């Protein structure tokens, strides 16, 4: 009956502390937070936390939501799969600022890095790997200046 309730609310190990939402509860704790990518300014309401699902997990906390393009799973007992979620982004492992998944904003290489941090530490990355993100972020800077 609760279509928009995130399916994670039934999986104990993911966001248990936030999933106390129940329809009809007097005090509904809103588990949603505002995510804003500090680079492209993409803004979404979403959940934040460790995402552990049936088929695996992310090493560190991510910003995520239930896949909005797909009907919610009818099966509430089964542990959800990654496919039932949409991952928006994660904090940068260096500067801890939220950054979205887009190619121009972040790079995952062992850990999550935002474009400015990659750019600053460019010598530490394989050059081939970061060519794309650096040109993109420089182009962006160019545009905004």
């Amino acid at each position, binding site marked *: 009956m609760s279509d*928009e309730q995130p399916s994670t609310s039934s999986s104990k190990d993911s966001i248990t502390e936030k999933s106390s939402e129940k329809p009809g509860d007097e005090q509904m704790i809103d588990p949603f937070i505002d995510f804003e990518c500090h680079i492209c300014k993409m803004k979404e309401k979403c959940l934040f936390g460790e995402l552990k699902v049936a088929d*695996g997990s992310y090493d560190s906390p991510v910003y995520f939501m239930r896949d909005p393009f797909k009907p919610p799973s009818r099966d509430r007992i089964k542990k959800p799969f990654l496919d039932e979620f949409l*991952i*928006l982004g994660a904090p940068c492992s260096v500067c801890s600022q939220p950054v979205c*998944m887009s190619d121009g904003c972040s790079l*995952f290489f*062992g*850990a999550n890095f935002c474009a400015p941090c990659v750019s600053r*530490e460019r010598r530490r990355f394989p050059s081939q790997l970061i060519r794309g993100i650096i040109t993109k972020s420089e182009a962006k800077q160019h545009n905004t200046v």
Partner: protein
Amino acid sequence: MYSLTQDEYEKHRGALFRHFLPDEPGTSRDGNRRGEKTAAQELTETKRKSIQSYFNRFFRERKGETNDHFDLNRVKYDDLGIPQDAGGLNRIRFKGENLGIIPTQLNHVPPWLYRHFEYAYHVALQFNQHQKFQKLQKLRKLQKELPIAERATEIVELLKTNQVLIVAGDTGCGKSTQVPQYLLKAGYTGVACTQPRRIACTALARRVAFETLNQYGSEVAFQIRFETTKSQRTKLLFLTEGLLLRQMEKDSLLEKYNVIILDEVHERHLTSDLLIGLLRDLCTKREDLKLILMSATINLDLFKGYFEGAPVVQVPGRLFPIDVRWHPIKQFIDQSEKKTHKIDPEPYLRILELIDKQFPSTQRGDALIFLNGVAEISMVAEHLKNYAEQTNGWIILMLHSTLSVEEQDKVFDQAPQGVRKCILSTNVAETSVTIDGIRFVIDSGKVNLIKHEPGTGTQKLTEFWVSKASANQRKGRAGRTGPGICYRLYSQEQFEKMEDFTQSEINRVSLQEMSLKMISLNLGLDPRTFPFIEKPSEDVLNEGLETLKFQRVLRSDRDILTLTALGNMVSKLPVDVPIAKMLVYGCVVDELEVMLTVSAGLSVQSPFTNRSYRELEIVEKRASLTSPMGDPFTLIAVFREWVLQKAFEGTARRWTMENGIDEHRLYEISKLRSQYRQILEDAGLVEKASAAETGEDDSRQRRIDQGEKRKLFDLKRSQRNNDRRQKVLNANKHFDKILEDKEEEDLEAEKDPLKADVKTVEFLLSHKQRDVETIRKTHKISRRTAEVVRVIISAGLYPNFSILDPVNKYGYGQEMFAHTRLKPFTQIHPNSSIAQYHPESIDPRQSSDGFSRLHQIPFYGLLLETTKPYICNVMPVPAIYSLLVAQKIVIEDWKELIVDDFLELKFKSTEDCRSVILDVKEIRYELTKGLASKLVGEDGFSSRRLTKYIDLLNQSIVEKGIKLAIKRNVHPPKVLTGIGIHSPDGGIDKEEDVDDLVQRFEKNQPDDRDDVEAEEQKVMEELRADIMCPPTRDMVEEEEKMEKKKKEVPKESYYEKNQS
């Protein structure tokens, strides 16, 4: 260096795929019956393909060699956590639980290959995530690029400090989809957004829900006449203008909303004009209410002037460049010749050929043709279909409001590669329906508009040139997804001559229903003084009020607009006056079941599909369903048969197809019936069914119901979710065949009760055994009941009756003329049961002096002028029945009667006349009394007496064969004066007014019945005193009784004697 040979990969890939991407349990790879795969299956399939193509590339580009060990355990990191080798796994965000651990059953697979495959699998997962993310990103980008996006904060800020805001923007600026979202984001929770059309409500709700990522929730919902997705969570509701107006009747402050958006106000519909006026007023009463008007930029000044001081946010539209090409066609230049000119489809074909010549089929882009009416659409479509079948380059589709929903939805499906779709549409595609991918617009420049003809009571459907505003709107449809071309089949000079705007509805339609609505809001509104945004014509307004008086819903004896007791009740029922009256009378005579069907049938389109009238086989097949008593009775028969098919046979789908019936309309009727019943219950006219009656006190039944309800809920949801996928059209199926697959499937599904569709489950859930049984019994109409039903339908439709033409032969294939009070020489619509199947039933077969016992007068639902003036929904009744419902009857001498200064009835003998008049008075009195007691909620009334007298009157027509001649007053006065029954001696019997009776009932209820009886007694005495008056039945019966009593006297005296 690691290397992999193709052979080695081939050897193990089966096992690896099975391990990583097993088939969902219980499903086969082939998908379901339709060959469609579930979403989960599809996803697995994509991942498989993605892995396969990774390895293909690996062999092709890297020759099966790589340095990557695919082992995370070997990776070293620096102080920032950056890996010190370039292994692919380092780029994987999401990791399986047992990454790198080979399960025992795969021990035969080389560990490196296993890890490599595992890597490819994770790449596939990540790719899938990335795609979803990009979809969201793209959506947000498109939103941001809309012209209105720049003004988002401004709009929200302005609304904080202003109560009213006007947002003006042209096509493509995104106001309808975005403004409601800005409000949601700003934290408003009770947002209502009105739309002039139902289809826009559902489409917008769907789109906005998608954009707010709430596609599968109910925060964004719609509400239309029969359907709503609203729930307690709903924050934004799209609803029709009419519905909001109706909500105002119950809750004049509209307290459940804190923002009301009136969208498309520039279209100037009657309801939106009224709402604008009402809401402007409401703003002064509710300071917390915010009002947003959204309009195109065309006649913005009108709104600015009406809401003085309200800030205006004006946004440019966004369209791609559109090339206008003028292709004037001859037909339009010399159209003066004859009215019956048919449209020439050639020019349309030539444009399609032109498109084919100029644009290769590899370039996408569909065509949209604007025509004025359904007839034109069918004609051109037939012609284009031939061309399409030759070239295989086009799919011809139609779009107009008389199509079923399923057929309408087909225009949104995609044409296959290399084929274009060509949609022939009325002006619904101008604003309400937006079809993506249109590149070519072909505009006939014509539109059919219904215009009320003042003074004749006619709704005239006439072809007009469109206005410049709508010509440009049509053009704009070509430039929504890319640059486009608009072919105008008229000249530039013609365009210059067109009006700037389309005439607003308030200047075009009859204002009677709107007036009633206004008066009934109980806000002391008078349509003649209401500050409309544009004042309607006084004449039309007065005519509307006059009609209301004719219908006895508005008091004719007062200056201040006051509803009669009947009017009060009628206005509480959210249906047109005639329908409301029928329902009320239906309650009075205890024929509710039948009247529910009849009135529901009058509110929806005929259940027979347009197409079916042209198919001889079908026309013949369904003859047995039609009734010589007219369309309402045909409908009763059709509905009964359908319900029985539905409940017992389970072959309703097949039955409807074979009889050329659109099942949707029957579903609509069945839904309307229960809605009407609900309305009558709420109004206190009928009692709510008790728990015992509905079977709710039966726990077994309750359990069954609950199970069914859950099933229905699940079905609805999965259907809704399925609907979101866009389907691809079949290249060989044009407008006439598009539903074939669906039909076959439906027939297939019908055989299996477990595969029942949503509508069937819904139907069965709302029609218990008992209800079906009731319909089966009540809808099989006995002669006696039929007469009662005819009388009350007449009472409802009055003053819509007509007089047949004395020289017209009423036979098959003839034009059948009928003269209405205000419009002579109308015709009975050829699709009506009477015209198509039973023309002989209205032929009076009169003798040379005009006398016959078969004279009939057809009542009708609607007078619509298309190519000719037609009366639709026709029900002929014996001419004498006019006396039962008329307002004014003048008894010239006891032989001639003049009804409403329009119809003259001449009897052969005074006896006949007197006896008829007596019965008539009795029936009228009973009807009035019954109505009055219903209206005050008195249950003392029994319709037995009424039924008896109707039966007697009918017997005197049928058995006694009273002959009469009828004549028409060719120039009846427009306004009726001197209501009542006028006797030859000059006395006017004003009869008992319902309102007086109601008042009396309300004042001294205990005595009234004696009063009435005393009154009756008085009438009888008066009658008896009249020597000219033949004895009435009552008198005869009473005398008989007296005689009996006399005979019994000895007995009694004997008894008395014994006692004494």
